[in-house]
């Protein structure tokens, strides 16, 4: 099932993301997803997230699909050139993966193999364009595909709370030009900023899923403020996380913060995308508290 069909039907689409393991046994990822994420629409599978080498997104997607979930293949341009990316897309379609999220990808220097060659032959925009070409039965070199062409729900990302929001909107517009059909955002902690962003982004006419991270502790929030581009946790949330360490440790404060953001932003967006970062078990509680 392509998740674009659900957006078209006006459904509020809920997705979450999981990361494949650094190893060959993905059973715990599949089990956790089955237990905590089977109630939501689809599950993103990251592609060597943060440039940290792990099992590939595609095999993990297939494992989730076999377990009855709807996976979204994340595909970055950091590790593969245009030949390998197209090859991966054909393989994904052949294996029944029809939801994708196209990203440029973090730089290799940010991860656990900082000496690796960063590829970036294509970027998120030209990758989306490439997918559209394949859907027309032609590859990026202009050669015809043999047989049926693939068909994907094509997603992209945008960073609404970036301090460089005009450049983000310009990039978003290029992604729409290139064929993006839905957007998932970087994590939002400032509802007001997100709502202002959506005022400008709605001109593109594409569904946007609010990005949500459950803040685990004051320390994690401060770390993100210092190190993660486009993410800013306001001081009052950090104070709330610091105030009651027991509740924060149990995850209650973080879940309450995330639920409040979802409630405030829900009228302005078409779905929510939860980056649980290991707290997949809290997703059902978060959705209940957010009234979804």
């Amino acid at each position, binding site marked *: 099932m392509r998740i674009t069909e659900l957006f078209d039907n006006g459904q509020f689409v809920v997705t979450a993301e999981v990361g494949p393991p650094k190893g060959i046994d993905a059973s715990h990822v599949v089990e956790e997803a089955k237990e905590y994420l089977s109630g939501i629409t689809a599950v993103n599978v990251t592609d060597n997230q943060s440039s940290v080498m792990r099992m590939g997104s595609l095999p993990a997607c297939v494992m989730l699909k076999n377990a009855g979930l709807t996976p979204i293949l994340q595909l970055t341009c950091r590790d593969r050139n245009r030949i390998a990316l197209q090859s991966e897309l054909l393989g994904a379609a052949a294996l029944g993966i029809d939801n994708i999220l196209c990203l440029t990808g973090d*730089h290799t220097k940010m991860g656990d193999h900082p000496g690796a060659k960063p590829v970036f032959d294509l970027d998120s925009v*030209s990758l989306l364009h490439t997918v559209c070409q394949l859907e027309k039965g032609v590859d990026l070199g202009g050669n015809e595909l043999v047989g049926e062409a693939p068909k994907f729900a094509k997603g992209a990302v945008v960073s609404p709370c970036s301090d*460089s929001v*005009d*450049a983000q909107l310009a990039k978003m517009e290029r992604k729409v030009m290139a064929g993006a059909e839905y957007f998932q955002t970087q994590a939002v902690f400032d509802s007001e900023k997100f709502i202002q962003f959506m005022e400008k982004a709605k001109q593109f006419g594409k569904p946007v899923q609010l990005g949500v991270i459950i803040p685990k502790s004051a320390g994690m929030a401060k770390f993100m403020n210092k190190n993660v*581009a486009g993410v800013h946790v306001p001081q009052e949330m950090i104070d709330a996380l610091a105030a009651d360490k027991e509740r924060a440790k149990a995850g209650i404060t973080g879940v309450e913060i995330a639920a409040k953001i979802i409630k405030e932003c829900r009228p302005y967006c078409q779905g929510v995308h939860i980056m649980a970062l290991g707290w997949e078990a809290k997703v059902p509680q978060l959705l209940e508290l957010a009234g979804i």
Partner: protein
Amino acid sequence: MLITELKAKETIASQLGSKVFVIFCHGCKEIRFPEKEADDLLEELTAAGKVTGSITTDYICDPDQLKLRLEKFAAAIEGADTILVASCGVGVQTVASMFESKKVVAACDTYALPGFQGVTPLEHDCKQCGECYLNLTGGICPLTACSKSLVNGQCGGCKDGKCEVDPGMECGWERIQKRLAQIGRLDALKAPIQIRNYATDVNI
């Protein structure tokens, strides 16, 4: 060493305003500049009544030297809406950063040859990629100003205006966005989707 070649006439014409100041850099001894083609272009532009002034010089990559040489052309530059620069990518970027409110147009693509680069790049760099992007980016090279050499806009890694890969470096696309706003060229961000052609890049 490097070679500069003029872009297609139509490509250059589509970038020019009604009044143009022209800078030709015959460069350093390590460079091959398309002298005849450039002279023909200047002649055509002059016949069309577009040229407010022109200078043929060398080492425009040295901003202090260039500033001195342009002093006597102040009125001609003031009267132009566009500065057309035929040089390698470093030269174009040097001029663009000197005239932040003018539209600076690259007339050439720059290709690499083995040997010395033969320029005096102080703060700008040219990858000699053979498909100059400076006309789409307000004269700031996305290949050298962006850690990922992105040609379709900013990634999500800009924090406080800096690149998350190298916090000592400004985000190239944030710079490009600001420059395009400053020169009223934000429409350049709606240019067709760019896919690099590595076949023109002899460094690969």
